[in-house]
């Protein structure tokens, strides 16, 4: 699995539970190192061992942890770059949802060896969407649920999210948009980034 994904879990655990906790987890995983490098690629087996050690150490179900990882990725100021990149997807939440179809391609534009499984948005009715997450990265749908939840806050939209089983091997996330301008979202300034 790409280092960026492993590194995301590391950043979440370290900043939420402390670096000591992360060191314990990596010791328990028996991988022989403590830091994942964002720009290197690790084997599936290494990632799985790390995730199992995280689940054991935090004593919480993995799907729940992964959803928090997704939320963390968007809402933590440490990883502001990712929120900004996602906000380029659209001017409002619905626009953003539609941009998810392009997300794996966009990710590959940024980091050419980062392969994310496909995403497909299906509009069932006005304000009612299904997001199909193709298989390939275990826990992808859980992380995406967290991302969608945090991005709704970011846009100031009120949504209900539910992981509603699977369809042709793809995990389905049901999205109900209750109100697109429920609260004042966070501002997004195109040129805020200093190069």
């Amino acid at each position: 699995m790409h280092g960026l994904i492993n590194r995301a879990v590391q950043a979440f655990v370290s900043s939420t539970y402390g670096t000591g906790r992360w060191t314990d987890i990596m010791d328990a995983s028996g991988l022989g190192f403590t830091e994942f490098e964002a720009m290197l690629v690790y084997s599936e087996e290494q990632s799985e061992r790390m995730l199992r050690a995280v689940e054991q150490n935090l004593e919480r179900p993995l799907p729940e942890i992964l959803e928090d990882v997704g939320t963390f990725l968007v809402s933590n100021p440490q990883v502001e770059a990712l929120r900004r990149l996602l906000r380029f997807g659209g001017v409002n939440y619905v626009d953003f949802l539609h941009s998810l179809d392009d997300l794996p391609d966009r990710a590959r534009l940024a980091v050419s060896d980062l392969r994310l499984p496909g995403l497909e948005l299906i509009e069932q009715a006005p304000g009612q969407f299904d997001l199909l997450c193709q298989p390939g990265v275990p826990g992808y749908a859980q992380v995406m649920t967290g991302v969608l939840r945090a991005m709704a806050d970011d846009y100031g939209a009120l949504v209900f999210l539910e992981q509603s089983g699977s369809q042709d091997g793809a995990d389905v996330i049901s999205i109900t948009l209750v109100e697109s301008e429920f609260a004042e979202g966070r501002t997004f300034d195109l040129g805020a980034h200093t190069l």
Partner: protein
Amino acid sequence: MMSFDDLAGFANQLCPMHVIIDAEGQVLSHGPTLHKLSGEDSWTGKPFFDVLDLQRPRWIKTISDLMETAGTKLHFQLRAAPHTRMKGVLVPLPNGQGAFINLSFGISVLDAVRDFNLTSQDFSPTDLTIEMLYLVEAKSAAMEASRQLNLRLQGAKIAAEEQAFTDTLTGLKNRRAMDHVLNRLILGGRDFALMHVDLDFFKQVNDTYGHAAGDAVLQRVAAIMVECTRKSDTVVRVGGDEFVIIFEGLLDRKRLSDLACRLITRLEEPIQYGAESCQISASAGTTLSTSMAQPDAAVLLHQSDVALYAAKRAGKAQHMFYTPHQETEMVEPDSRSA
């Protein structure tokens, strides 16, 4: 026939950065994004050249010159601060009614977005600017992550090299480092002296007081060798109690001999290990790189070893320079003591 208002309405949607001028070069109207550039001071009604300075092509001096440029690339600069550069293209309106000029930020878009607080609504939906901004940010973030990785790898590489060239017990250079230094000196045509030092009675220290005491003695020996030599000299631990010192640029036999004697005297001072007092000495043999027309590291090491062996044979605790006749003494059946 399309009215002027129709045209402006169309253009506002498709080209939010257009300017329409009349035949005299006065701005009749412009697209909504340019409002952000003009601020309070509206462009409408002003001479076009008062707002934008045409930088290239240089031959254009007047509005009638400008009308001649239809279809070619124009370079403008905003007259007011922050003097943003823009690209443009002009198409004349029919019947000499003026011209339609479409503008774009070109490569200065990154600054423009910040300077004028532009949002995605300021660009036409078909404009690739937003994608370009996305790419710039994504690549910057990825580049930063790569840069961090490179910095960490660089640090790890330096640490690994340091370790690979260092004898971990004494902190002196190791055999690998010695080969490296000898190669560098020989290839660079530099003269040097090579001194081989072997401790006497070290085995007794190890046997009597144990390896921990032996290690402590070696560490003390290393410190003394560093103290007795110059910063530019290379002190190497080549084996258990064997050392090599490379004196770069030092060929004076008298000085080398004095140095060796001082070193041996210092090494003979008792070394405290806990309650024990350990007594050792050392023998040394030296050869000069100038002894060979074409210096060869292996041959020079052999010569210094021969000289060391001669010093040992002569009764230990002394220093000798290499001479060819020592080689013949080597073959005599006399076991070398340590």
